């Protein structure tokens, strides 16, 4: 049984190990392992296309994670008091957002936004007040990337924060109100500190999701290139050690963020179960 578990962990982690190992390979091919070297990292870091893709990915991931955690937290708190039909519809929407395949989200966003922009751009031309300067042109790119990523990750944040808020000690909030704290004061002093780890975990998960997402971005990125799109098209052109270097950096970054998120979620779980018992 134990051996079986070890074998599965090996199965899960050895591909990651192989990528890390080959990223330090001085030779060009997997078969000629000629020694350790960081030259592929140097190559990647001085490759303007890879760096531009990295910048795009980081910008999109950061923006999506911020929007998702702010609006998702607001919605999770708002939903606490919403009952009845509105609640049912909302829950269904969140469920659909999480369960629908990324590829369908990508397609839907692509054709909806391209169609909408076709009507909106002439309208903007027409009605844009001249004192606001140049007429902006709506295009697929950052807007659609951030829009689609935020939609999905916001649903995640709602689920995470809501479950934390539901496990919160209501007595503290009532006590705070009894002691004449304003609702605003109660929020910052009581509610926020309790849900903060969940918000932070949601932020980290959102960032990683957006940073790693390939399939939605593939459809909605327009002329922009995110890092996963760059990696995918490099693989199409042939496997090179440069991809291993990018892969290692990406994997290790997201591993670190995720482990942090998991421990934030679990640490609080243990804390609250300790208090309850």
């Amino acid at each position, binding site marked *: 049984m134990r051996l079986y578990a070890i074998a599965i962990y090996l199965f899960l982690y050895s591909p990651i190990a*192989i990528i890390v190992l080959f990223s330090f390979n001085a030779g060009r091919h997997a078969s000629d392992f000629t020694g350790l070297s960081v030259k592929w990292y140097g190559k990647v870091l001085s490759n303007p296309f890879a760096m531009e893709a990295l910048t795009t990915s980081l910008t999109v991931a950061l923006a999506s994670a911020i929007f998702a955690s702010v609006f998702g937290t607001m919605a999770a708190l708002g939903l606490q008091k919403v009952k009845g039909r509105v609640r049912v519809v909302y829950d269904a929407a969140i469920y659909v957002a999480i369960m629908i395949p990324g590829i369908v989200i990508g397609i839907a966003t692509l*054709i909806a936004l391209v169609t909408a922009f076709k009507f909106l751009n002439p309208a903007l031309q027409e009605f844009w007040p001249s004192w606001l300067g140049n007429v902006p042109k709506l295009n697929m790119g950052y807007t659609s990337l951030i829009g689609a990523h935020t939609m999905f990750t916001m649903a995640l944040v709602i689920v995470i924060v809501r479950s934390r808020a539901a496990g919160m000690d209501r007595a503290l909030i009532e006590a705070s109100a009894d002691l004449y704290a304003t609702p605003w004061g109660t929020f910052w002093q009581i509610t926020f500190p309790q849900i903060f780890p969940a918000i932070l975990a949601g932020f980290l998960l959102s960032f990683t999701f957006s940073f*790693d997402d390939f399939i939605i971005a593939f459809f909605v990125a327009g002329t922009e290139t995110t890092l996963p799109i760059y990696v995918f098209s490099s693989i199409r052109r042939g496997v090179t050690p440069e991809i291993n270097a990018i892969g290692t950096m990406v994997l290790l970054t997201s*591993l670190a963020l995720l482990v942090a998120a998991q421990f934030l979620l679990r640490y609080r779980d243990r804390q609250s179960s300790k208090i309850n018992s």
Partner: protein
Amino acid sequence: MKSSLVHRLLLLPATMWLLVMLVLPLLVVIIFSFGDRGPAGGYVPGFSLDQYANLPARFTAFKNTMILAPAGTLAALLIAYPLAYYLAVKANPNIKTVLLVMIIVPFWTSILIRTYAWIYILGGQGIPKMLEFFGVEGVRLINTPYSVLIGIIYGYLPLMVFPIYVSLEKLDKRLLEASQDLGASPIRTFRNVTLPLSIPGIATGCMLVFILLMGEFLIPALLGGGKVFFIGNALVDLFLQSRNWAYGSAVATTLVIVMLLTVSIYMKLMMRGSNIREEVSLL
């Protein structure tokens, strides 16, 4: 009343976002699926079922998906179950959290790069070369249904382990002792006690893996080498290469309908048994 207004305001940005980026786009897909292809690609308004009637044109993609998605789900289940059992029943409680986190974390890291690693492992320089060393010649793994299957198991195993783990964890261990005390063999205990009580977890895991697999694109694209393609690959082709939006929308709508049917059948089955909600535990 004041508090209810505040709560509604709190919901406003998320509601707008979901309307514009989820509800509206999905409606557009449904509407477009009844339309026609424009002369230079894109979409021309219309109302017909022509696109749906044309679905058999992509029969191979549907066939591959409907064979490999269930096969992948089943294989993942068979591999995941013993591990989930080990984690829930046998594992040392001190390191259990770490072991669990180690299962979930790969699922959230770049599936693109993790799948890419398998190009190395299954490619000419990888396992086939090792087999040659042992005297087994001419094994081809990459760009076959088997490589896609391996990629699927690898990518989706964590998603299967977790729900099963949760249901086994909840299982009252005294039941196992009772069964044993009453003289049941370990196999009989498993068949009559453990397995039936873990069915909700099995069902949840299978459903999650199956519906995500139906929309899979990357694994067949990277490990199937254009020979083993799924509906997802057909969709990428229809939207990004041939720009046939109307037909693509019909394929996408069909995909979602099949998925919804799967989920509702699952829900029906679960309503009869014990119902569990585990969306949070997966995160």
